[in-house]
């Protein structure tokens, strides 16, 4: 049995990375002779979620409910997983490589005295079970042997494309309400501030996105880029370093830990193209990179490039667009 912890969005649907993880679990199941894939969900399972999981080939949907799961606590969720693990006799436990997924599985691995592999992108063999996972911020790949049972690992975001199963599963609802030990509830969320409205929506659906990275140079270095974005009616997308430095808000971030975009044209300016960022923009149909370094990964992976400082190139492009529009 393969058990997948499925996370929900605020509307109660499975998040994309959990669907990717279910897709990964199915490929593992196929390699292992068709062992069933079960899902674990904390809290309510709506009929919509149940049919979503059925489409991804899930056999049983284990719903964890009861007072111990009212607020997030990593240890409590792990104890719930232990209950389902014992009931379903699973040998593999997976989650998406999200903060929650990684946290809960690390608890489970620590409690079970087994290894955990984080951010797995592929598996190489079943006996021994060898996974490939991202290390050094995605710059290198580690082959890691997982020989303990249960086998516990998280799947990196965008490692596989989420795809429904050829044959849907029954997604039979199995409800569990296990007691949670007081010691597993000591570190739990005691209050949650409403999230800011999702401002990244336009980024995900935009036809054109103007990107900005470290090359912008400072918080005040975005004027020309914002003008280009305005001229093209495009939103601005930024790299992780830009939000880490506080130059631009987090909702503008493109990458593994930000939005995944798939525009007709992406124009990354002053972005070197770390794996982290590439994971969020590789679906763009065309990429026009503007960078001083002709060997930067963003340039070599792009369809088109201009070699130069964005602070010189972008104003020239803006002027050319204005000139042609005026003409």
């Amino acid at each position, binding site marked *: 049995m393969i058990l997948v912890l499925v996370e929900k*969005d*605020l509307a109660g649907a499975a998040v994309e990375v959990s669907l990717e993880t279910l897709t990964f679990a199915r490929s593992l199941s196929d390699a292992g002779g068709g062992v069933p894939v079960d899902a674990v969900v904390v809290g309510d399972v709506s009929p919509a979620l149940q049919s979503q999981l059925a489409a991804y080939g899930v056999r049983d949907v284990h719903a964890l409910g009861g007072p111990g799961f009212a607020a*997030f606590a990593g240890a409590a969720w792990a104890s719930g997983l232990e209950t389902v693990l014992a009931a379903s006799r699973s040998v593999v436990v997976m989650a998406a490589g*999200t*903060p*929650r997924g*990684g*946290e809960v599985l*690390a*608890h489970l*691995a620590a409690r079970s005295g087994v*290894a*955990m592999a*984080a*951010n797995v992108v592929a598996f190489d063999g079943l006996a021994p079970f060898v996974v490939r*996972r991202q*290390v*050094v*911020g995605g*710059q*290198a*790949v*580690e*082959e*890691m*042997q997982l*020989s303990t049972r249960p086998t516990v690992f998280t799947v990196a975001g965008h490692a596989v494309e989420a795809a429904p199963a050829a044959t849907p599963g029954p997604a039979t609802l199995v409800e569990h309400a296990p007691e949670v030990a007081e*010691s597993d509830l*000591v*570190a739990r969320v*005691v*209050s*949650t*501030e409403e*999230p800011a409205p999702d401002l990244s929506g336009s980024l995900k659906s935009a*036809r054109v996105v103007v990107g900005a990275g470290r090359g912008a140079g400072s918080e005040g270095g975005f004027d020309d880029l914002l003008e280009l974005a305005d001229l*093209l009616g*495009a939103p601005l997308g930024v790299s992780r370093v830009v939000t*880490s430095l506080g130059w631009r808000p987090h909702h503008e971030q493109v990458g593994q830990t930000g939005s995944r975009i798939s525009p007709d*044209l992406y124009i990354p300016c002053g972005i070197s193209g770390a794996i982290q960022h590439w994971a969020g923009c590789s679906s763009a149909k*065309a990429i*026009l990179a503007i960078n001083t370094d002709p060997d930067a990964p963003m*340039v*070599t*992976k*792009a*369809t*088109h*490039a*201009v*070699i*130069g*400082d964005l602070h010189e*190139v972008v104003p*020239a*492009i803006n*002027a*050319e*667009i204005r000139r*042609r529009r005026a003409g």
Partner: protein
Amino acid sequence: MASVLVCVKRVPDSSSEIVLTDDGQAVDGRFAGFTMSQHEQCAVELAVQTASATGGEATVLTLGDADALEQVRAALAVGCTAATHVVADSQQLGPADVAREIAAVVRDHEAAGRPHDLVLLGHDAADTGDFQVGIRLAYELGRPVVNGVTRVTVEEVDGRPVVTASGDGPDGHETYRVPLPAVVTVLEGGVEPRYPTVPGRMKAKKIPVEERELAAAPAGPARVRWSLPPAAPSDVHVLGKGPEAAPAVVDLLEQLGVLAR
């Protein structure tokens, strides 16, 4: 008064291109710059702030080879006042080994009359990216753990020290309130790590660093090898250099039909 232990790791600077050793077991140090990860710089800042706000002490701990002393000194230069260095090749240790070694330090310090109420770590190591040392440490010590927060404060509630920690979760900004002793792992973004001053650096040089050996034989990481993803052949069409390329860029925008408005 809170005594804080903050754990840091010497890691290759992954913002630049990396080269691996021939045996694929590590980043080749001859071609890399080394640093402390952003998460850990923030953890050090939070440790120093917490110690200062409560009249306590911030101790920095690292596990690494002799060169890792550089990161220990960096933490001392920004306000940590004591240091422990477990001298070992960190590449030979798995996350469970590291957690066990940190726990051994915490227990030995406690036995010597220096208990650490709060242990802070970075959320994940910038090189091995195991995402689990803090949580495993909590189970080793039998303490609660809060994972992946950006803000940490310690205060007395009904005469007992309590850590309030918060960070962004999937449902919004989440707050935890946990009695000490506890373990907390930190993500960058909540505080601005301070820069060391010249007097700070001078003072850091004079602080004695407790050197230790591994407390137990490590089980090791389950690593087979590291490799670099193959570089895909580039078929980029370079439109030009500098501002002179602007007309060619706008031609492309017209071709792609993204210029019309």
